[in-house]
């Protein structure tokens, strides 16, 4: 991972270290000037080792979350790099004939053969690079992808890359290495002999000495396997064969021609790509004269891996925001409580002449030491947490053979450390300033600060500025069409109005209840009641979480007496419980600030977990209906280019071993890369892969539409219109705008249509996409007559008839995929197997769609659960907060505990009072989180299901039960120790304690 939120990590590291270093330097300087304050601060740290440990634990959680996110990203980056380089090896640049791009779509790219050109181009390239010391080798290559069948056992593999190497040019490239580490040389191959990759050998169940058949279109070619290699045949997929260049050329009938020139640079393969620009520049004349293009495979692969890693880190950080926010609240709470503990001594210090700034410094010194310790521990522990997460991700991909390579870049650990340090220290400074405002007499006598109800200069200023800011944000939200900004603005307006009313005399309960209820209503409002067409991103989720939690906490805290009364009434009849309950629930409701903060932390984290679980579970329901996702088809079969099937229905009748009776429908799909844009839209046309379907497809596909043009009675009519009407097309839902404009992230679609919403009744009659075939320059204006439903997993971005594609390109485009519908009860796996076998000469690769979808769903499940698990780390924050409060309460209430014991409270009753107190906060927090999470996910899913048919609101009982159980059990565990120490307080000692 080299970038984070678009900033270079190295740059970020130095910036953060500079900020942290500057802070440390200022602090050290003032420590030298105020040695007494410094001594007081430092000596406070070891006074209560267990409390110090708890503080460090609480402070480190935010850092831990940073570090764990980065580690996961780093590991994914290195795993992806390793994975992609496996197929590239030492190859840095590949020259091939120029052709339009063929973007990798979900429907799978059509496999096509690179055009052949004169092999003299390789010589020219070598000459052009002869002066470049960084270039290690230049080699010609012929490459085909064909179907291969084992003659020994009839096993077939539809896609095998056959590489024709020129032995004399392979210096500077990888060598073919056999499983025992020995080298295989192409020059040693006899006539009709090949080397086979270990994976291909495994798939075909063959070994050295066996014979295979490869289908090149004109018929099979037979080869003897002369050896099996583990690695070295690059660039190719896992299933490959290697042979001499001349042999392959004569087999294909392209003597003296090649279709790739490979260039390799010096140095480690992982570091390759560095010299790419120079190489490509030096090759420019060769490329131009031969009509070739340079594919910077190494650099692209590394960049793609790095981007993916950075994206994963960003996703984890994005979803970790709640936990990080809760972590920041915790840091603040810890220092507020520390200040409360030190109140008396700080008052005395001020009394004997210490200035406010000295108090700030003293507190800042102490905080800095805690921050340093916490950030160091947190950043290292985060690597451990990241490692655990990576193990789990590994299991998600174990099936697909994707290996996780653990990696934690030191600079990212340093960033996590510095980020944690800077963040913690900033909060420390704010709380230090707050502490320094104490009233000396009140501090010494430990009298609570009077509630001025906002009637201070600062309070009035805040009351006036908040609604003003709110109005500005509301206006801004409308101006830029940002839903988040708009709702934030309205929220500030609500809070502001209440603050003004409070200054004017409105009681706190009424003020905060009104504000809280207002926020809850606003942020839980179904999308139907909100302005249309405004952009909504994942940031809205974060904002709404914070806002509804703040609202709910206000409502609860300021109406706690009702809740309290209910609790006492409900349990007051149990023998021995009334006095315990009375004290247990009174304390948290009196200390509104700390209870509110803890409640907010708890509910925020539980809310996030619950919302995510609800959404995951509801989205998972999409995968339940595989038939719907697959458009009613059961098998997709991709055809090889080397030996295309001219007429599938005819071929089926002749295919050996295929039970034609079981197949009820067949749709054929082909595709063409084009340049496309909406007619009349501004801007450049974008690369877009247009899909062509035949009559069989139009008659059998089961996908529905979110919206269609006027005049079509049914979905079927729209599909059939693709064949019967001229120049019409349907588009995927990704390309069409929706009213709520909800963006869940992911790459943007190649083009975005405008001028309508999917929620409208009909599509406008003049909605056209102009597509141009770049080679021929031919173009068409396709009228859009339908937006395919979101759950159409196998539909293309733009789908039209195959005849449109043929007209664009000037010749019939061969079918690339076939979709098969089977009769009820047919075994898709068996039929797919028989299809592959029956069409093995054509290299047909057939897969049951249900299995494909289920595998995708399973991997998706693991990843979603991992994300929930990561967010669950935030629970530690809430739990630590409870622990801190409980530990602090025992110290604060020592005398009162002594009095309770003197009065006759048994030890168990004291312990129970503390446990009930923590339970009260934890349970209210959990209940709030669950209720709010359930409500918000209801709103979210409600707005999604309008567009996304098939998604249904589901309650993830198991996850909710797990979250509730784990959160509550852990909170009890954390408070058990302080509760036990409270129960052990000796009354005589406690009462002496002043």
């Amino acid at each position, binding site marked *: 991972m080299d970038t984070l939120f678009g900033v270079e990590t190295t740059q970020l590291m130095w910036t953060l270290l500079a900020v942290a270093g500057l802070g440390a330097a200022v602090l050290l300087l003032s420590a030298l000037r105020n040695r007494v304050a410094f001594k007081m601060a430092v000596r406070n740290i070891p006074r209560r080792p267990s409390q110090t440990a708890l503080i460090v634990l609480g402070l480190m959680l935010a850092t831990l979350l940073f570090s764990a996110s980065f580690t996961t990203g780093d590991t994914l980056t290195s795993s992806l790099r390793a994975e992609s380089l496996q197929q590239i090896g030492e190859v840095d640049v590949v020259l091939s004939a120029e052709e339009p791009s063929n973007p990798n779509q979900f429907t799978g790219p059509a496999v096509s053969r690179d055009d052949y050109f004169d092999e003299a181009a390789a010589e020219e390239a070598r000459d052009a690079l002869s002066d470049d010391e960084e270039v290690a080798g230049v080699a010609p290559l012929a490459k085909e992808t064909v179907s291969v069948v084992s003659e020994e056992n009839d096993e077939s593999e539809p896609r095998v890359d056959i590489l024709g190497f020129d032995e004399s040019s392979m210096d500077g490239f990888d060598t073919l290495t056999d499983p025992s580490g020995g080298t295989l040389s192409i020059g040693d191959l006899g006539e009709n002999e090949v080397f086979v990759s270990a994976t291909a050998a495994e798939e075909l169940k063959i070994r050295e000495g066996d014979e295979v058949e490869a289908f090149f279109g004109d018929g099979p070619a037979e080869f003897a396997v002369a050896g099996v290699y583990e690695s070295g045949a690059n660039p190719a997929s896992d299933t490959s064969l290697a042979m001499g260049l001349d042999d392959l050329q004569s087999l294909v009938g392209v003597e003296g021609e090649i279709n790739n020139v490979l260039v390799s640079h010096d140095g480690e393969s992982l570091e390759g790509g560095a010299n790419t620009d120079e190489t490509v520049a030096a090759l420019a004349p060769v490329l131009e004269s031969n009509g070739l293009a340079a594919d910077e495979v190494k650099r692209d692969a590394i960049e793609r891996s790095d981007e993916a890693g950075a994206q994963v880190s960003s996703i984890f950080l994005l979803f970790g925001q709640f936990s990080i926010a809760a972590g920041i609240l915790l840091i603040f709470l810890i220092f507020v409580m520390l200040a409360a503990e030190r109140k008396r001594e700080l008052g005395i210090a001020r009394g004997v002449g210490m200035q406010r700034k000295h108090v700030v410094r003293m507190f800042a010194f102490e905080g800095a030491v805690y921050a340093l310790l916490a950030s160091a521990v947190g950043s290292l522990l985060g690597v451990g947490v990241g490692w655990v997460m990576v193990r789990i991700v590994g299991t998600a991909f174990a099936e697909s053979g994707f290996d996780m390579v653990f990696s934690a870049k030191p600079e990212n650990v340093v960033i996590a450390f510095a980020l944690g340090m800077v963040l913690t220290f900033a909060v420390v400074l704010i709380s230090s300033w707050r502490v320094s405002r104490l009233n000396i007499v009140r501090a010494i006598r430990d009298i609570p600060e009077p509630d001025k109800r906002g009637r201070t200069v600062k309070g009035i200023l805040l009351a006036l500025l908040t609604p003003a800011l709110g109005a500005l944000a509301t206006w801004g939200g409308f101006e830029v069409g940002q839903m988040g900004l708009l709702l934030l603005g309205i929220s500030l307006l609500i809070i502001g109005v209440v603050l003004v009313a409070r200054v004017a005399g409105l009681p706190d309960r009424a003020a905060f209840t009104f504000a809280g209820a207002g926020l809850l209503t606003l942020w839980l409002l179904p999308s139907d009641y909100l302005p249309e067409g405004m952009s909504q991103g994942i940031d809205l989720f974060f904002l709404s979480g914070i806002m509804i939690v703040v609202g709910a906490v206000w409502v609860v805290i300021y109406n706690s007496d009702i809740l309290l009364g209910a609790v006492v009434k409900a349990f007051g009849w149990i023998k021995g419980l009334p006095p315990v309950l009375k*004290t247990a629930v*009174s304390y948290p*409701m009196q200390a509104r600030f700390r209870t509110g903060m803890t409640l907010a932390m708890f509910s925020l984290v539980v809310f996030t977990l619950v919302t995510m679980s609800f959404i995951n579970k509801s989205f998972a329901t999409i995968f339940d209906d595989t038939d719907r996702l697959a458009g009613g088809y059961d098998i997709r079969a991709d055809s090889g280019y080397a030996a295309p099937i001219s007429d599938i229905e005819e071929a089926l009748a002749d295919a050996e071993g295929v039970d034609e009776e079981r197949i009820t429908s067949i749709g054929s799909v082909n595709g063409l890369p084009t340049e496309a844009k909406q007619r009349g839209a501004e801007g450049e046309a974008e690369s877009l892969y247009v899909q062509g379907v035949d009559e069989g497809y139009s008659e059998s596909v089961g996908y529905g539409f979110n919206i269609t043009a006027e005049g079509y009675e049914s979905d079927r009519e729209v599909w059939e219109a693709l064949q019967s009407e001229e120049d019409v097309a349907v588009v995927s839902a990704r390309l069409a705008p929706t009213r709520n404009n909800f963006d869940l992230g992911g790459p943007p679609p190649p083009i975005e249509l405008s001028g309508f919403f999917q929620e409208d009744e009909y599509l406008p009659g003049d909605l056209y996409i102009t597509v141009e075939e770049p080679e021929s320059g031919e173009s068409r204006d396709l009228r859009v007559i339908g937006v395919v439903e979101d759950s159409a997993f196998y539909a293309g971005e733009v789908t039209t008839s195959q005849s449109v594609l043929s007209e664009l390109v000037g010749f019939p485009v061969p079918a690339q995929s076939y979709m098969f519908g089977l009769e009820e009860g047919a075994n898709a796996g068996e039929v797919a197997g028989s299809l592959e076998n029956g069409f093995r000469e054509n290299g047909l690769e057939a897969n049951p769609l249900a299995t494909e979808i289920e595998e995708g769903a399973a991997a998706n499940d693991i990843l979603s659960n991992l994300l929930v698990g990561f967010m669950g780390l935030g629970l530690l924050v809430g739990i630590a907060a409870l622990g801190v409060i409980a530990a602090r309460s025992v110290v604060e209430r020592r005398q*009162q505990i002594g*009095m309770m014991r*003197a*009065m*006759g409270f048994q*030890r168990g009753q004291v312990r129970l009072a503390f446990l009930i107190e923590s339970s009260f906060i934890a349970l209210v927090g959990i209940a709030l989180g669950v209720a709010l999470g359930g409500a918000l996910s209801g709103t979210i899913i409600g707005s999604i299901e309008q567009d996304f048919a098939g998604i249904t609101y589901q309650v993830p009982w198991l996850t909710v039960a797990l979250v509730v159980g784990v959160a509550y059990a852990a909170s009890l565990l954390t408070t058990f120790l302080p509760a036990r120490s409270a129960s052990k307080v000796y009354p005589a000692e406690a009462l002496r304690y002043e």
Partner: protein
Amino acid sequence: MSENGVSGNAGAERATAIIEASGVRKSYDSGDVKVNALKGLDLDIAKGEMVAVMGPSGCGKTTLLNCLSGLDEVDGGEVVIEGESIVGMSDRKRTRFRAERMGFIFQSYNLMPVLSATENVELPLLVAGVKPKKAHKLALAALEMVGIEDQARKRPAQMSGGQQQRVTVARSLVNEPAIVWADEPTGALDSETSKDIMDLLVRLNRTERQTFVLVTHDPAVAGRGHRTIRMRDGEVESEEKNAEANAGANIETNAEAYGSSSGGGN
């Protein structure tokens, strides 16, 4: 025990000792120094008696109160309350014993800041298992008895020191304990409020017939009791009876304890 102990009563030859302490020893560590707070102290206190314990700081007054009331354990000796030894009693039993038979008043009030005056007074009743409704009624009556029924709904922070101490007194008496222990009950109060509180305690001692043990520095407070015990270095240095206070004493005699009609006091 009373033969050897510093026993005292008024109005009767041999009053019933509600508190009997003999050879009580207690030491504790203060930093690196071992402090012998009580050095084999003997003491008897009669039922209904109001005894003041005086002495310089560090002489062991509070330690004595803690040891006799069962708030602290003794290192040696014997403490018998109402005929039952509390030495070696399990924590659970001793706690219940305190809940049923003792009330406490402290200099710093030690009220629960989060509870109202009524709720604070209710607490010992609830601990003793009294039903919440009845506890509430009794608490209000106790507040009325100490003259602050109008403060019933206020929290400690909203009351003056004298009012808070009255709540403490109400709390200490609400479950009608046999003994009320008071550690510097007027230590944090001005002289006028001190006098009010002492008037209240004396009145309650007379009317409710409860035994009061007061630890104090204030001779005026000590003078209100039947007897003053002076301590020095963990031992009883002297004791004196207060004739004025004894004139109105209500101390139970042996004869009364054994069922005679010759009631205590005059």
